[in-house]
């Protein structure tokens, strides 16, 4: 909800400045001013995309993520600190508050600098586990850059991200190899549906602490269980991305050419620039942002039947609070997607559907919404169905949670009442009731006939007999 308003406001502003659906204020935490120049290509790219970048050192006393209790920035980028922690203004609790209020964080790690325990504790809250050894690095003896890490094998070369589920939309595909130098491997908790791995290590990779000598025992993680870039999307759709290798953002690797081991492999340029651009665009809400526009439901019978296809319905009774059981109902929802510069109609990836639940305690209907029309900004998804034969307080519930898309959760509560006393079919309409109705009328007619007969056939008695009988009665 909040996001929607924010999105709307910034969307208007965004026409002239930012490409983000949420806001353009970005704060970058880096310890030394000298570091800044390492990433100059990345900064200029961000600036071109409309971000107002503020550079802060974690030691700054006037650094504060909040202003008057509200987030002061829409986005936060943390580069690996040299010192042991991030200081009092970036404690895990404050960062969690920052995310809870809807702001996004891009956290870059590096195996060159030990990860502060505050950060690994924070990631632990997100169900992302870092190696216990602070100096661990991901190595792979089959997919490394022969040019820069011929001996250490710690600069990984990876193909473009791919997702096993076909309906997961890939926002991160690049057509060149991505170099991940000195990466910190992450392991994602199994049950958390909020987490998704953007870039997995190849199956031959493993984590390893170069400072530890001797044989390798009890490896932290191996193969594709190691996530090099992880994306976390909170329930309020705030995004938290962990980039295992901060160096991948450096100018050096934007321009570098790399070569895979093995014969016949040629030297080629890295796809880092594009990948980092896409990753930051996703984190900073330039990609995969969904917005729900108007939601309408109305009675689809009587004078309003088929109102969506007609123009002659003058006064459509939209969003009534109460329906009756077995009513026909029309439901429609407008969904837009933010695409870098503007809202465009959202279409579900192939093989995926937007679903509508009509539920009370549990769903009574779960229907696929069908795209019915599109107006350049949004797609209108509709469903028409008959309400269940159960009265109660129901919800029209649309829930769409997919990796890398912001969450759609829209609930409209309506009451479904029982038949009123005058809405039942009348008895003479029901053919099965004819015997009973006939019975009633036959009884009445019979009684009237009997009374008439009784009165008619009363014996005419002589007067004294009548007297005698009445006296006898007394």
């Amino acid at each position, binding site marked *: 909800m909040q996001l929607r308003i924010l999105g709307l406001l910034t969307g208007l502003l965004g026409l002239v400045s930012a490409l983000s659906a949420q806001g353009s204020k970005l704060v970058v935490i880096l310890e030394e001013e000298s570091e800044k120049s390492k990433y100059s290509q990345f900064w200029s790219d961000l600036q071109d995309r409309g971000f107002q970048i503020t550079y802060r050192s974690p030691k700054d006393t006037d650094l504060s993520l909040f202003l008057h209790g509200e987030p002061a920035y829409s986005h936060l980028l943390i580069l690996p600190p040299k010192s042991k922690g991030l200081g009092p203004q970036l404690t895990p609790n404050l960062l969690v508050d920052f*995310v809870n209020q809807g702001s996004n964080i891009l956290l870059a790690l590096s195996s060159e600098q030990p990860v502060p325990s505050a950060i690994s*504790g924070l990631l632990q809250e997100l169900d992302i586990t870092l190696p216990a050894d602070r100096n661990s690095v991901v190595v792979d003896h089959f997919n490394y850059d022969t040019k820069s890490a011929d001996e250490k094998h710690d600069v990984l070369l990876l193909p473009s991200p791919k997702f096993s589920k076909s309906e997961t939309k890939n926002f991160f595909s690049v057509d060149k190899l991505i170099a991940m130098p000195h990466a910190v491997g992450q392991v994602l908790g199994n049950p958390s549906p909020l987490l998704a791995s953007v870039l997995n290590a190849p199956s031959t990779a493993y984590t390893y602490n170069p400072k530890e000598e001797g044989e390798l025992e009890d490896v932290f993680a191996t193969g594709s269980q190691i996530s090099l870039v992880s994306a976390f999307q909170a329930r309020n759709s*705030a995004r938290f991305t962990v980039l295992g290798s901060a160096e991948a953002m450096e100018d050096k690797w934007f321009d570098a050419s790399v070569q895979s081991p093995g014969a016949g492999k040629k030297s080629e340029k890295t796809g880092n620039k594009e990948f980092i651009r896409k990753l930051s665009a996703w984190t900073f809400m330039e990609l995969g942002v969904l917005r729900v526009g108007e939601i309408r439901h109305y009675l689809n019978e009587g004078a309003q039947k088929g109102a969506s296809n007609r123009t002659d319905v003058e006064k459509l009774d939209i969003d009534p609070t109460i329906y009756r059981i077995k009513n026909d109902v029309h439901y429609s929802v407008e969904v837009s997607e933010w695409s870098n510069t503007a809202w465009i109609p959202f279409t579900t990836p192939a093989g995926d559907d937007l679903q509508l639940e009509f539920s009370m305690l549990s769903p009574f209907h779960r229907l696929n919404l069908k795209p019915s029309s599109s107006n350049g900004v949004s797609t209108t998804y509709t469903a028409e169905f008959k309400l269940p034969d159960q009265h109660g307080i129901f919800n029209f519930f649309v829930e769409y949670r997919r990796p890398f898309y912001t969450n759609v959760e829209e609930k409209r509560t309506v009451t479904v009442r029982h038949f009123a006393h005058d809405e039942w079919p009348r008895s003479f309409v029901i053919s099965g009731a004819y015997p009973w109705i006939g019975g009633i009328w036959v009884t009445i007619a019979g009684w009237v006939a009997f009374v008439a007969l009784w009165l008619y056939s009363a014996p005419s008695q002589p007067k004294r007999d009548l007297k005698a009988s009445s006296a006898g009665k007394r």
Partner: protein
Amino acid sequence: MAAISQGTGSKFFFEGESGRNTRGLLRLIILVTIAAAAVASRLFSVIRFESIIHEFDPWFNFRATKYLVNNGFYNFWDWFDDRTWHPLGRVTGGTLYPGLMVTSGIIYHVLRLLSMPIDIRNICVLLAPAFSGLTAFATYLLTSEMTTSPSAGLLAAAFMGITPGYISRSVAGSYDNEAIAIFLLVFTFYLWIKAVKEGSIMWAGFCALFYGYMVSAWGGYVFITNLLPLHAFVLICMGRFSPRLYVSYTTWYALGTLASMQVPFVGFLPVRSSDHMAALGVFGLLQLVGFTEWVRTQLPSKQFQTLLRGLVLVVFAAAFGFLVLLTVSGTIAPWSGRFYSLWDTAYAKVHIPIIASVSEHQPTAWPAFFFDLNMLIWLFPAGVYMCFRTLKDEHVFIVIYSVLASYFAGVMVRLMLTLTPIVCVAAAMALSNILDIFLVAEQPVEGAQPQANGNPRANGPTTATEKLASAIPDTLRSTKTPVVGIYSYLSKSAMTGAFTAYLLLFVLHCTWVTSNAYSSPSVVLASRLPDGSQHIIDDYREAYYWLRQNTHQTAKVMSWWDYGYQIGGMADRPTLVDNNTWNNTHIATVGKAMSSREEVSYPIMRQHEVDYVLIVFGGLLGYSGDDINKFLWMVRIAEGIWPDEVKERDFFTARGEYRVDEEATPTMKNSLMYKMSYYNYNALFPAGQAQDRVRGAKLPAQGPELSTLEEAFTSENWIIRIYKVKDLDNLGRSHQEAGAFEKGNKRKKSGKRRGARVLRVD
């Protein structure tokens, strides 16, 4: 001269035609005065507190009446209430007895028509007292049918007006079905007696009409439905079948059943449920007996008659067997649980805890009879005995009514209400007889005692003495011509004096009971300060108005069902369960949420979209009607549905004690109810000295912690505590983990987990 004119004056006023008029006028004045007294004694609560609806059920009736007045009758008829029983809703229009609301609605509209716009609340508050005046009048009519003594009716009316047994349900503000139902009950009985006496279709028709009104007003109509057939049945068994009985019963049954079926809540019950089958059976029996009688007049053969009697028995047995068959096959609904609990007081506790959990469904304690009826309770058997002496048809009714109602009143506190009218009638008959005998100044003239002793109904004893005289041989002078009558002024004045004293004491007792026991609205509690002044504890309304003003219009409030109607009425917020208790499973769900651990309760509350949880806690004030004391009922009701998940045994210590202190069982300490009750309670006391004043227990030094709920409101005296249900954690953690993180505790590293590694599958 003056004396002469006085003499002629009194003669003019007290004898002959004008004398009758004078007595009629006096009677009217007395009745009006009684009605005024009845109304006045019910106004204590309004004067002490304010014009407010009392207790629990009246709040629903009040809310329904407001709906009726605002939306009109047909909308009320079809009312689907989406603010109770969330999310099931309640078909309220079809599941209530509309008589009360419609009555108030009609009064409201009539008064407006007369350009007297009166707030509907005041009409509702004062409806019960107003109808108590009518009840007194109806009692007068009923009693007058029983005896020729003119004073009996007036005494009965006076008793009915002020007896606490009836006042308990009809003080101002007690806007419940019983408020009008008792009037209808007594009046229907009066019309029935009238009909049986006269054998008139008109009276039976009126009886059916008022029976229909009664059905629309109170579920207790079943009492009439079974009492009238029983009366008819007993009369038949006594060989007192008469065309009068036939006409009145058949008319009443046919019209009354049709009338009762017009109420949606009753619908086809009169032909489908066992509770109503007696009436149908007697109806059939009457036809058979009527037929037999007719055949007898045609065929005077004795053998044929016995054959017919045998036939009747066979038919009766066959009909009964058929009935049983229908019941077993399910066409006719079996007896309802409430009915069984009338015969076996332990039945409800075992099978339907929801009924047993209501305090007014408990068996009556013996002192309650004296408390509610005072001297009437010992005059009552005398009156019943007098009915036996002149056992006319209507006296049989009194006898049956007294026997049945006495039993029911003994089984269920609530049914004291149905006993009260008959106690008043019988006691008035006994007392008027005594007064009629002892208040006569003239001495009885020998040889003409029957006329002189002032008891017109003394035929019985006279014939009895004659019989006695004939039976005993003429050996003793005293038995030769026994003289019956009161001669001595001493005994007359002693008796009248004693009874005047009793009557005065009765009035005193009634007023005392009314003022002290029955005039508390229970929404507002009154207590005495050390200096004797009254202190009002208004926590309920404080909390309900907090809800009303600080929460969203559709915020769902979960509470134990006792408070459902009040939340609906005063706070105007949707509730999960309320006093209607139509859905035991839903109530058990709330019971389960209250009696389980937070991890179990939270999904239940989420599923039911609960926003706030309201509990009543009396520990600080010593208010014993709180939720911890009701807690075992929640556990029992939940156990009835989920015997594997909620177990009553777990809430008792190993020694079988129900404790809340340090030694409370872990299940108890972890239950949501316990946690909500004692959350932050420690903060009120010096460390380690928290004290529960209801249960007299010293609480653990470490108070309970809540993670899925947060405290939203606690009333001044901590009687009402309201908690807000937290939303799911934004980062997908459990609330315990989130709470620990807030406090700065580090999460355990899952990497150091033992056992096989769990791989993530995307």
